[in-house]
C-alpha cells in the first residue's frame, strides 16, 4: 500500500536539514491565552510602574539545534519531558514558527502528532475517514482509492454508517490509526501516538510503522518507550534542555541516555546514594512473559517486584515506592517502615488489586533509607508501559487519568422505588 518511491536519490542527500533552529516562548505565554481585561490591567499596571521597565522573561524551549536526516532514515527522538522534543517536532510540522534558524525539508511532510486528529463524534465512520484524511493532507481521490483498505485495517466494516460517538474507544483508535497509516508522504513525523491503546493495537501499529520504514520513507519518531525506539530506529537523537545532547547509532545513544537516567539525572535534586551500601538492580511485573517484563496488560491483580542488593544490614529501614506518569505527576506512593534486612539480594514486592491507569508510559521510583540516610534511590528503567484496554469517554478531552472498566445500567425511577420499598 506504500508505493515504492524512486531510489534515484542517494542516501547522502539530506531530505531534512536543520540549522541553528531555536524557539523562544515568553514565560507564561505558553499554553495561555488572554482576556481583554488582562490587556486593560496590563496597561494600567504599566502606567503605574513607568520607570520599573521590566523586560519580559523568555524561555528557550529549543536552541541552536542542527542536524541532517538522509532519505530513508528512521530517527528516534528521545529526552525527558519538557526537553524540547515535541517543540522540535512541531517546528518541523509547521505547527509553530521558529524564533531563529531554519530548516529545509525535501518532500511532502505528514505529521502524526495525535491519533484521530479532526475526528468528530457526530459524523459517521465513513465521513470521519474522509474528514481526517483531508486534514492529514490526503486528496479526496486518494482517500476514495484507499478507503476499503483503511476500513479493513481498522476492522470496522459493519459500523461505517454509525456515528463515531457510538464506537468504542478501541474502535475509534483503530480507525484513526488506519487513516494515518495510509498517508503517503515522503517524510513522516510521529509523536508518541503509539503509546495508546491495548497491546494488540500497539503491536499492529508498530508492525505498520516497521513496514513504512522499509519502503524508504524518512521517519522522525518521538517516544518515551525505549523498546519501541530500539525496535524501530537505527539512529537516535537525544534532546536535553533544548539542545542536542547526543546524536548517533541507537545503541550508543540509548546506552548514554539510560545511564544518565540511571545516575539520577532524571530526578530533580535527588542523587542516587553512594552505591556502596545498597543498590536497586532491576524491576519487573511478576508473572509476565520474559519479553514483556515491563508491560502491564491487565486491569486485574498485579504484583511488581524490585530487586535490591544490600552490602550491610539495616536496622530501621525505610522503603519508599512511587509511581509517576509521563508528565511526572505522582500517581501513587507508599512507604514500608521498620525493615530489618540482612545483607544480600532482596526482592521487594508490591501487590495491587488493580492498577487502573490510563494506557501510556509510567515510571516507578524506589528508594531505600536506613535511619534517615538514603542508601539508594532509583528512577526505574525501563519505564512501565501500561497497555490495557481503554475504558474511557469517546472524546479525547474527557479522557481521565484513571482507566476503570465501569458498567452502566439504567432503570425506571419507579422500579428503584419499589425495590427500595421491598427492602424495608
Amino acid at each position, binding site marked *: 500500500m506504500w508505493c515504492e518511491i524512486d531510489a534515484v536519490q542517494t542516501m547522502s542527500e539530506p531530505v531534512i536539514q536543520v540549522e541553528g533552529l531555536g524557539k523562544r516562548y515568553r514565560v507564561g505565554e505558553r499554553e495561555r491565552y*488572554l482576556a481583554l481585561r488582562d490587556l486593560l490591567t496590563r496597561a494600567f499596571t504599566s502606567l503605574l510602574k513607568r520607570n520599573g521597565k521590566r523586560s519580559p522573561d523568555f524561555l528557550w524551549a529549543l536552541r541552536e539545534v542542527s542536524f541532517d536526516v538522509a532519505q530513508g532514515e528512521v530517527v528516534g527522538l528521545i529526552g525527558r519531558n519538557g526537553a524540547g522534543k515535541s517543540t522540535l517536532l512541531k517546528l518541523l510540522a509547521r505547527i509553530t514558527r521558529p524564533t531563529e534558524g531554519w530548516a529545509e525539508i525535501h518532500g511532502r511532510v505528514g505529521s502524526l502528532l495525535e491519533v484521530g486528529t479532526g475526528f468528530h463524534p457526530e459524523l459517521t465512520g465513513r465521513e470521519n475517514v474522509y474528514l481526517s484524511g483531508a*486534514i492529514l493532507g490526503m486528496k479526496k481521490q486518494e482517500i476514495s482509492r484507499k478507503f476499503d483498505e483503511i476500513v479493513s485495517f481498522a476492522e470496522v466494516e459493519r459500523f461505517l454508517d454509525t456515528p463515531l460517538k457510538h464506537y468504542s474507544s478501541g474502535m475509534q483508535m483503530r480507525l484513526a490509526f488506519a487513516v494515518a497509516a495510509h498517508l503517503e508522504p515522503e517524510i513522516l513525523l510521529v509523536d508518541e501516538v503509539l503509546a495508546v491503546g491495548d497491546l494488540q493495537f500497539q503491536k499492529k501499529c508498530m508492525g505498520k510503522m516497521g513496514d513504512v520504514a522499509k519502503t524508504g520513507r524518512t521517519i522522525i519518531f518521538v517516544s518515551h518507550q525505549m523498546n519501541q525506539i530500539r525496535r524501530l530506529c537505527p539512529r537516535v537523537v537525544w534532546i536535553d534542555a533544548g539542545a542536542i545532547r547526543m546524536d548517533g547509532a541507537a545503541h550508543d545513544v540509548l546506552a548514554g541516555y539510560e545511564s544518565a537516567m540511571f545516575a539520577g539525572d532524571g530526578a530533580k535534586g535527588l542523587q542516587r546514594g553512594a552505591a556502596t551500601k545498597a543498590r536497586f538492580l532491576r524491576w519487573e511485573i511478576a508473572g509476565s512473559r520474559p519479553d514483556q517484563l515491563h508491560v502491564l496488560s491487565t486491569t486485574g491483580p498485579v504484583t511488581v517486584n524490585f530487586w535490591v542488593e544490600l552490602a550491610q544490614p539495616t536496622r530501621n529501614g525505610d522503603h519508599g515506592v512511587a509511581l509517576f506518569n509521563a508528565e511526572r505527576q505522582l500517581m501513587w506512593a507508599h512507604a514500608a517502615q521498620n525493615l530489618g534486612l540482612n545483607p544480600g539480594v532482596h526482592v521487594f514486592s508490591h501487590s495491587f488489586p488493580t492498577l487502573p491507569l490510563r494506557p501510556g508510559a509510567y515510571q516507578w521510583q524506589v528508594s531505600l533509607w536506613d535511619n534517615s540516610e538514603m542508601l539508594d534511590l532509583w528512577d526505574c528503567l525501563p519505564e512501565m508501559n501500561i497497555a490495557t484496554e481503554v475504558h474511557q469517554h469517546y472524546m479525547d478531552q474527557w479522557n481521565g487519568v484513571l482507566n476503570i472498566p465501569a458498567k452502566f445500567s439504567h432503570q425506571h425511577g419507579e422500579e428503584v422505588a419499589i425495590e427500595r420499598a421491598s427492602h424495608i
Partner: protein
Amino acid sequence: MAAASHAPTVDGLPVLRITPREGWFALDYHELWEYHELIYFFVWRDIKIRYKQTAIGAVWAVLQPFLTMLLFSIVFGRLAHIPSQGLPYPIFYYSALLPWMYFAAALQNSTTTIVENQRLVTKVYFPRLALPLSSVLSGLVDFGISFLMFIAMMFYYRIHLGWAMLMVPVFLLLAILTALGVGLWLSALNAIYRDVRYVVPFLVQFWMFASPVAYPSSLVPAKWQWLYGLNPMAGVIEGFRWSLAGRSRPPGRLIVVSSAVVLAILLSGVAYFQKMETTIADVV
C-alpha cells in the same frame, strides 16, 4: 505560515523552507489553492454537523429570517410606518434580511473558528486561513435555502424579478468578502483575547442598525450618505433590495465606496491574521 515556500527541485519533490516569519503580508495563494479540498471538507463538516444537531435541520434556515421578517414588518412597518419604497413590508424586509442574516451568522461562526478547532491547530499543519474562509462559506447553504423562500414570496406578491437580479451574485460576493475581512480580524483577536466572542453579538446588533435593514438608506440625510457608505453592508443591502425588488435607484456610488472599504478590511484582515497565525498555535 506563508514564508514556508514551495519550489519543485530537480527530483520533483517540493522543498519546504521553515524560517522565522518574514514580511507583513505574505499570502501564499498557491498553497491556499493546494488546500482547496480541505476547505471544501471543512465547509461540508460544518453543514453536516449543523443539520445533524438541530432537530428541524434545514427548516431553521428558513424559519429564522422568516420570523424576523414578520417581526420587522409588524414593528417597523405597521407600528412605526417606516417607508418601504412602495414595496410590501415582507418583501422589503426579507430582501435585506437575506444578506444580513448571512453576514451576521458568518461573523459569529468565523469569530470562534480558531478556538473551536484548537485541537487541529495545535496538532496538524494547514493554512490557518482555511478555517475562517470555510466558516464564511458554509453559511451559503442557509443563504441558498432562504433565497428559495424569497422567490416563493415574490410569486405570492406577484412581483416580477427583473434583469437586475443578475447582479445578486456581485452583491453576494461583496457580502462574503466583508464577512471574511471582518471575520479574519475577529477570529485572530478571539484566539488571543477569549472574550472577543462576547463582544460580537453586540457588534452585530449595532451594525444592523447602522445598515439599511430595518429602514431604507434614503432616510439618512444626504450630507451623511458618504459616511454611511463606509459601512460596506449598506451597499450590499441596498444592492440586494435594488436587484431583487427593483424599486429604488441602483446604488452605484454606494457600491464603489463599499467595495473600496471591503478591500481595505480584507487586506488588513489577512495581514493581521497572518501576524497572529505565527503565534496562534502557541496560545490557543
